């Protein structure tokens, strides 16, 4: 049982799950700036790829049959 930071002076001694998760994340990622900053850039890198793939898939599905890549077989002469 860990002491809750929120409960100084009170009889409660249980750190709730959110606080434990926050502490784990803080100690792992935020505490060292040399880990925090690269995590942010790596997160941006990952998000840019993931978001692009997701939104492109949605766009292609939503506009099926209307884009050049869907109809180009009819016009390619190679």
């Amino acid at each position: 049982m860990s002491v809750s930071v929120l409960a100084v002076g009170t009889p409660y001694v249980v750190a709730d799950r959110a606080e434990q998760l926050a502490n784990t994340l803080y100690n792992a990622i935020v505490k060292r700036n040399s880990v925090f900053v690269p995590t942010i850039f790596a997160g941006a890198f990952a998000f840019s790829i993931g978001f692009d793939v997701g939104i492109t898939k949605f766009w292609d599905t939503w506009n099926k049959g209307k884009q050049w890549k869907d109809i180009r077989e009819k016009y390619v002469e190679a």
Partner: protein
Amino acid sequence: MSRVVYHPVPPQGNVKRFLRTWSTSMGLWGAGAGITALYLLSVTPLVKREFLTKVPVLGSYFEDKTPASDKPF
């Protein structure tokens, strides 16, 4: 009665202490600088062609898939 004894430190003692303190941080910042540079340069065709396409999982995302007949240049 206390006795003060001087323990001489060889010059490499300062270097060792500096490395012990800072080597982890320097290594992490170096990796971070690499990640940042890769992210900021990922738009360039050189980095895409020569490096990012060779990454195992994400390589196919960076490949240029437009057919040659569709390219203006």
